């Protein structure tokens, strides 16, 4: 069973992947990972480059073999099952379209291999229509833009009717506008197909926009799993907090823990704030201070502290203001333009902060 109570479709237990020959020099790309993925869920592996997320995808696809541990699909071990016999298809980072085949032939590739019954041409036309590429059937991959190639890659993978679609940073090579557009299409497609998507990205915005579940990874391990909003609101440590939402990690000393909140002493004052339940008075802790938790206020307000504006970035609907408080560099959003060097007063809204463990 997965955390949300759904039937576990894909299960990993103690999954490890080490590269390199000599034991002393071996690098653990995946260092003992457990997870459960639901049958219809959009799950994202999120982490910085080199965290092992792509390796996990390759283990699921069957391109790599685990050094230890195992993967089970619907309870059946995938050990020794070659890629071609897994009900899994992949959308590659660079799309990996066959350059010698037309768009239609690329998409028809798996159907022709299986000599599947029914009208291949009709199915191909349907798959191309689903990704809005119907009129490009006779083109060759090099004649398409990145976004178009990406759509063909998705059509080629999904026409094989996989139970699980793996997507390896499929949007990373595209410009921002195309990326946002295709995010919407992918999410829509996943809902319509009703199959599990496992998506790899290093872009937290993308992960938030798409995912039902996120696995945050670092150094070959899964650091935190959960719904996007839970991970954003309650990061288990400063690595996750920093990677997910940015913001500033303010050193904090835990004075008293009270269930879901804690009293902490920080350079900005004494606060009661939501806190990780794993914390205790001896913990190395930090207050996660994101822009939305900081408010400009009058110097006389309760809890106000003095700050100096150090930078101003125009964001269209708002300004992002950088402010120095002692040796802390904070950021907050402002609707009004402030001058660099201006002396202002700020206060923080403890309900929008979170106290978490220092660590990775």
């Amino acid at each position, binding site marked *: 069973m997965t955390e949300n109570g759904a039937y576990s479709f894909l299960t990993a237990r103690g999954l490890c992947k080490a590269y390199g020959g000599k034991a002393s020099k071996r690098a653990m790309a995946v260092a003992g990972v457990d997870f459960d993925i639901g049958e219809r869920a959009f799950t994202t592996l999120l982490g910085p480059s080199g965290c092992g997320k792509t390796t996990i995808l390759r283990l699921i696809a069957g391109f790599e073999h685990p050094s230890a541990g195992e993967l089970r699909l619907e309870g059946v071990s995938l050990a020794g099952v070659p*890629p071609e016999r897994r009900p899994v298809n992949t959308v590659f980072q660079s799309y990996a379209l066959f350059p010698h085949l037309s768009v239609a032939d690329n998409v028809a590739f798996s159907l022709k291999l299986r000599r599947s019954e029914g009208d291949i041409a009709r199915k191909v036309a349907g798959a191309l229509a689903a990704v809005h590429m119907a009129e490009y059937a006779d083109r*060759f991959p090099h004649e398409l833009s990145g976004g178009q190639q990406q759509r063909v890659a998705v059509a080629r993978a999904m026409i094989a009717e996989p139970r699980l679609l793996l997507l390896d940073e499929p949007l990373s090579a595209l410009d921002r506008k195309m990326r946002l557009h295709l995010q919407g299409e992918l999410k829509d497609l996943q809902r319509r197909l009703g199959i599990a998507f496992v998506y790899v990205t290093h872009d937290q915005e993308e992960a938030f926009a798409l995912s039902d579940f996120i696995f945050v990874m670092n150094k070959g391990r899964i650091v935190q799993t959960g719904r996007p909003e839970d991970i954003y609101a309650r990061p288990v440590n400063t690595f996750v907090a920093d990677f997910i939402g940015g913001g500033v990690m303010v050193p904090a000393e835990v004075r008293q823990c009270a269930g879901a909140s804690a009293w902490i002493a920080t350079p900005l004052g004494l606060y009661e704030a939501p806190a990780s339940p794993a914390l205790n008075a001896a913990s190395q802790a930090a207050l996660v201070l994101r822009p939305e938790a900081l408010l400009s206020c009058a110097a006389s307000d309760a809890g106000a502290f003095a700050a100096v504006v150090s930078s101003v970035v125009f964001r269209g609907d708002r300004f992002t203001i950088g402010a120095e408080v002692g040796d802390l560099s904070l950021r907050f959003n402002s609707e009004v333009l402030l001058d660099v060097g201006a002396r202002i007063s700020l206060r923080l809204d403890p309900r929008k902060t979170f106290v978490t463990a220092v660590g990775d």
Partner: protein
Amino acid sequence: MRLLPTKPFSRASLAAPVAALIGLGAVVPMAMFLVISVYSVDFDSYTLQPNFTMASWREVWTHASYWILIGKTLNNGLLAVVMTAIVGYPLALALSRLPKSAKGAALVILLTPLYTGEIVRVYAWRLVLGQDGLVNALLMFAHVISEPLRFLLFSPFATHLALFYDDLPFMALALWVAVERVDSRLIEAARDLGCRPTTAFRLVILPLTGPGLAAGTFMVFALAGGEALAPNLLGGTTGATPMTMIDNLFGTAFDWPTASALALTLLLVLLFAAFLLSGLALVLSGGLRPLRRSFA
């Protein structure tokens, strides 16, 4: 104001030295052979007579014995191409998957046989394939055979084996370069979409390396078809080639016109066959489309 210096010469002019060399070393002699081929020989004074006659061309084109020899070289070339391609593909695939650090060493090992020199290799084959040679000795020792195999040396078998061995590096090199350029993710994509490894080879690697196969075919066919030494010294009575005939005509017989006509005929036939075979390799591998694309 010009910021960039004017181009001192065009890119194409870089090819001029090679063009001059080819002109001097190949085109001019060929033209001379063409002229000599329509001369006649005065066998009393052993001098060439510059009077126009098609006699030597008629001689070459109407006598089956020349064409049997030409057919033999075509057969030598064709067999060498097929065998080197069959062995060369797995070899090229294996080489392409070596770690980068090992590739330099692999290249040296692949090319080392070429440094031994042809005569040395020919006599080495005699040691290996002869009646008392290594292969026979081993098979006798293992009681696989009771008397030496005679077809091993001074036979078509020996000729084809030597040609295959001599020319394998060229085919393997051409295929290696081609295989290196195939993105490994394309092979993974093929597997992902349901190909067994052999199907992935046929549907993805073969078409994408078709131009390499065609280049290797062209080289190996020319090398094996033009080879005289190995067939002569290893093929026994079966090892005669047009080269030996040309050698005899030029040297012993002083029949330069016939030798020239035969040499030019052989050149034309070999070239035509090499183009045909390379084209066939390109079409059969499915590599025609990728090639067109790369020039598009």
